[in-house]
């Protein structure tokens, strides 16, 4: 395959422009679709002026808008976090859920629900559960990273195996918690674990926007460092990069982003894995474009998946994780089978 830098950058800018158009279209479609179907114009009118009939305005502004925006912010955060992890670990398979972040975050959140019990209500409770998810995610990924690192750098195979081990351990401890807790909290945990975007409201959206926004602003600052990290950690150091700081910062931001998303919307499979993969296939591994494009694509994908989850079996809603997994898994398998076509060797 022959591609010049100029072509690649041109394609990257085209993709960014296309996604910048697609995302608002997806958001508008998401606002218009659902149990009560509205036209796009009606939805836009309801959104902007509060007109279009009192009911439409209420549905759009109070129910669908927080939900669609939450999907967009979390999709962007997950996809950009996935892109950063894959760069840091020099492995296109390093999805946050494969390296233990998601399982650690789940355990952290369960622990807080069990210990906090009925105290955890409203915004404060949500923040605390998110904090638990964050701490759990950070601890899990640090442990995995520690297990996989030696003087010679980070072994990717060991890292994936350690991720499996930590995921299993977190799952076992989580089950133990569920086993010993009372029925009410058990229900709380399992409802929370199912996650999904149906719980979207303004406090959740506010928390997601603050945290997700910070992650989305912070990660691109490491784009150049990530570009050099693909050469290897020593090579990045020889190119003047503060590798230890970069590693810690990236792991920290990803754990914040993924931990928060697990806390707010549950586990959403494959957005962090598949989106950066596909974007990289299209525009190459330059993180200056990859991070931003992954974020936009992830936002679009999750908004579309959420819309589908509300429409396919309406008025019943499917958990959005089912839709992303149904889209993601076949895609992922086909990528695995064709990886040599685009020069990826794993």
């Amino acid at each position: 395959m022959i591609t010049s830098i100029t072509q690649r950058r041109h394609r990257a800018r085209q993709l960014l422009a296309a996604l910048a158009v697609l995302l608002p279209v997806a958001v508008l479609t998401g606002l218009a679709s659902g149990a009560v179907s509205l036209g796009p114009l009606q939805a836009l009118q309801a959104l902007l002026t509060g007109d279009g009939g009192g009911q439409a305005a209420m549905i759009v502004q109070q129910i669908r808008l927080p939900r669609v925006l939450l999907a967009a912010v979390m999709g962007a955060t997950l996809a950009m976090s996935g892109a950063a992890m894959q760069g840091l670990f020099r492995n296109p398979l390093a999805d946050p859920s494969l390296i233990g972040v998601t399982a650690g975050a789940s355990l952290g959140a369960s622990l807080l629900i069990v210990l906090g019990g009925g105290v955890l209500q409203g915004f404060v409770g949500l923040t605390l559960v998110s904090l638990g998810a964050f701490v759990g995610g950070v601890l899990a990924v640090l442990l995995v990273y520690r297990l996989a690192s030696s003087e010679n750098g980070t072994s990717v195979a060991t890292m994936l195996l350690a991720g499996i081990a930590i995921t299993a351990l977190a799952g076992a401890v989580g089950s133990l918690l569920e086993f010993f807790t009372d029925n009410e909290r058990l229900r709380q945990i399992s409802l929370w674990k199912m996650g999904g975007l149906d719980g979207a409201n303004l406090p959740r959206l506010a928390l997601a926007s603050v945290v997700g926004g910070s992650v989305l602003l912070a990660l691109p600052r490491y784009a150049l460092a990530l570009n050099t990290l693909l050469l290897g950690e020593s090579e990045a150091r020889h190119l003047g990069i503060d590798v230890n700081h970069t590693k810690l910062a990236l792991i920290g931001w990803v754990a914040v982003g993924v931990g928060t998303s697990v806390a707010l919307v549950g586990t959403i499979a494959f957005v962090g894995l598949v989106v950066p993969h596909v974007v990289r296939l299209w525009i190459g591994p330059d993180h200056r474009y990859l991070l931003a494009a992954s974020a936009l694509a992830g936002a679009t994908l999750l908004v579309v998946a959420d819309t589908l989850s509300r429409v396919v079996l309406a008025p019943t809603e499917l958990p959005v994780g089912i839709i992303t997994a149904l889209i993601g898994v076949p895609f992922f398998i086909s990528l695995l089978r064709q990886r040599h076509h685009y020069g990826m060797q794993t």
Partner: protein
Amino acid sequence: MTVLALDGVSAAPWDEPLLVDIRLQVSAGEVVALIGPNGAGKSSLLRLIAGDFSASAGTLAFGGQPLADWPRRELAQHLAFLPQLSLLNFPYTVEEVVLLGRTPHATGARADREIAHHALVATDTLGLRNRLYTQLSGGERQRVQLARVFAQIWDSGDMAGKLLLLDEPTAALDLAHQQQLAGAIAGIAERGCAVLLVVHDVNLAAAVGNRLLVLDRGRQVASGTPAEVLTAALFRDLFHAEVLVQQHPNGRQPLVIGL
């Protein structure tokens, strides 16, 4: 002008002594070749200078300043290191890889691409520019990585004060590209860049090096011009190999003939 000065340097990053009492001075424009048997500490010496681990005794100075005092980025503008193995398995284009060498500089995209062009020409990789790195052969990848470290310290004018560390840069290269690399090294040395490289082919070492440094089990056992260092006795003691050492027909260097 002394670019690099090692005085009584020892290192034991994993508690075993890897390097013991190394004394070495490299001046601007000088090419020093490190030779020695496998496991002699040649790569470790390069990695020590590149800052992968620190010395347990002695002093390392680069450009007159202790190496550890250099700000990270400024050091990267003056010192480039080509390791033996490359881990890169993401589908960058060749030109993108070479441009990564410009990361520590703030010379602007246009100047960077011009410098990358020079580096690509110097390593005969211009024709590969738009290929994907992951689809190249071993020798081609090595030349691309060479172009990357060339680009990192490239200066179209005076290159005094810069140091290039190359760990077996010729290992995967065919004969023509070995000769071309020797020419490229001579070219940047002429403009003042100091080069410290590990080579296994002693004749190549004698051809590119102004000076040879011989290491054995972490110790420096000989140092001097190729003619001083390359003797039949050295090969018997060090490599346990019988060789003939003669004057090269070109009259400039010794020629070591194995079996």
